[in-house]
């Protein structure tokens, strides 16, 4: 995260200098990006829930699910989040919300049917850890930074187009060249960093979830079951993919040589590695 911020500052400095603006350039762009992303962060629970077609789950209808969430909330000291169910045979679950008081946890009917109680506890423990670690807020900030870099690059290119060299008394040639290279690469690098952060937070949520349930094997076997399941989540989109416990796009073909490259662009770490780490606890 710190590296990301340094990266962001470097990019904005170079681009700003090459256009003849100062650091206020970065400030303005941050504000714009912040405003754009704020609504998405603030209402994250409602947005994600409606996008995934979730409905509120009642205690009467989903007693086991409700009890597990309630019990693990007691164990973690968090207020109990609102729970939702998605009608889909693909097993998956997610947690969202800007802070523990406004959190929501959703699970598909698939996961509720196919997992044993210990496995479901592992999954919910993982999701509650996301809430506890304020991961939605963190990814929201990261999204703002990524958006800012994209805007910076965009503004840079437009300015280049409309300015002639005589107008910029403060700019210098080196900065312009470096600026162009950065403007092209920065958005890609920013996205890669965002995905790397997402993967690390997944590992953290795995570990914290295991700490919560005191039973890492539950989550480990749950992940294996989910990975082996052939169903694909119907309403998943790239926007919401990183919230889910398992990458909903996992059924895209993998070839050995491309493995590292696919993983670079994945929001979740590979299941085999997650299971290995859990089983070594």
């Amino acid at each position: 995260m710190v590296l990301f911020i340094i990266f962001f500052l470097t990019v904005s400095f170079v681009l700003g200098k090459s256009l003849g603006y100062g650091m206020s350039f970065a400030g303005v762009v941050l504000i714009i990006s912040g405003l754009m992303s704020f609504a998405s962060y603030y209402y994250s629970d409602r947005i994600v829930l409606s996008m995934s077609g979730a409905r509120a789950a009642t205690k009467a209808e989903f007693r086991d699910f409700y009890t597990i969430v309630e019990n693990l909330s007691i164990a973690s000291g968090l207020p109990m989040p609102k729970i939702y169910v998605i009608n889909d045979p693909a097993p998956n679950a997610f947690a969202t919300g800007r802070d523990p008081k406004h959190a929501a946890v959703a699970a598909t009917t698939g996961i509720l049917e196919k997992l044993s109680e210990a496995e479901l506890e592992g999954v919910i423990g993982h999701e509650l850890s996301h809430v506890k670690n304020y991961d939605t807020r963190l990814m929201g900030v990261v999204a703002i930074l990524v958006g800012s870099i994209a805007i910076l690059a965009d503004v840079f290119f437009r300015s280049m187009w409309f300015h002639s060299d005589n107008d910029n008394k403060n700019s210098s040639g080196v900065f312009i060249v470096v600026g162009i290279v950065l403007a092209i690469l920065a958005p890609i690098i920013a996205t890669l960093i965002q995905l790397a952060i997402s993967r690390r937070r997944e590992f953290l949520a795995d570990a914290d979830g295991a700490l919560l349930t005191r039973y890492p094997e539950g989550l480990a076997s749950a992940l294996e079951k989910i990975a082996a399941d052939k169903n694909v989540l119907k309403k998943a989109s790239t926007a919401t993919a990183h919230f889910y416990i398992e990458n909903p796009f996992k059924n895209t073909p993998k070839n050995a040589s491309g493995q590292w490259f696919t993983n670079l662009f994945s929001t979740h770490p590979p299941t085999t590695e997650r299971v290995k780490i859990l089983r070594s606890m």
Partner: protein
Amino acid sequence: MNPTYLIIGLLVLIALYLWSSYNNLVVLRERIKEAISGIDVQLKRRTDLIPNLIETVKGYAKYEKGVLESVTQARSALVKAGSPSEKAKAENMMEEALKTIFAIAEAYPTLKASENFKELQEELSDTENKIAYSRQFYNSNVLDYNSKIKMFPMSIIASQFKFTEEEFFTATEEEKEEIKVKF
């Protein structure tokens, strides 16, 4: 740079560190108190389920007066209990009585089959889980707190301001023994 400014700056930083550390310890200690109340909340939940249980069992197994009496006694002991050790004793009585009730229920098929009884069984079992989790939460907080006050340099601040170690929740000797069910 003027050395006086440097020293003042350093002192300010140290003061800030002391201030935030003290507050941190206060928060951790209060969380432990909250966790204790949390356990009590779950224990009370269990106590509140008891009258219902007694009524249901009475309906089907009216000849088991001995068991029903022991549960009623345990409950009134709980209500009267004052000090923590009295409470712990009363809770133990309650747990023994409950175990016996569920054991004798095996001998009464109509009782076992009744929806009320099944519902109560599930509720009580769930409450036992909740009690366990709230104790786990308490232990986690005690762990955080104890570790923090023992680590250096926090240990100096802790002893200065009288932050003392808290006890983990452990099973009593009675609880660790094998469960004997008498018919």
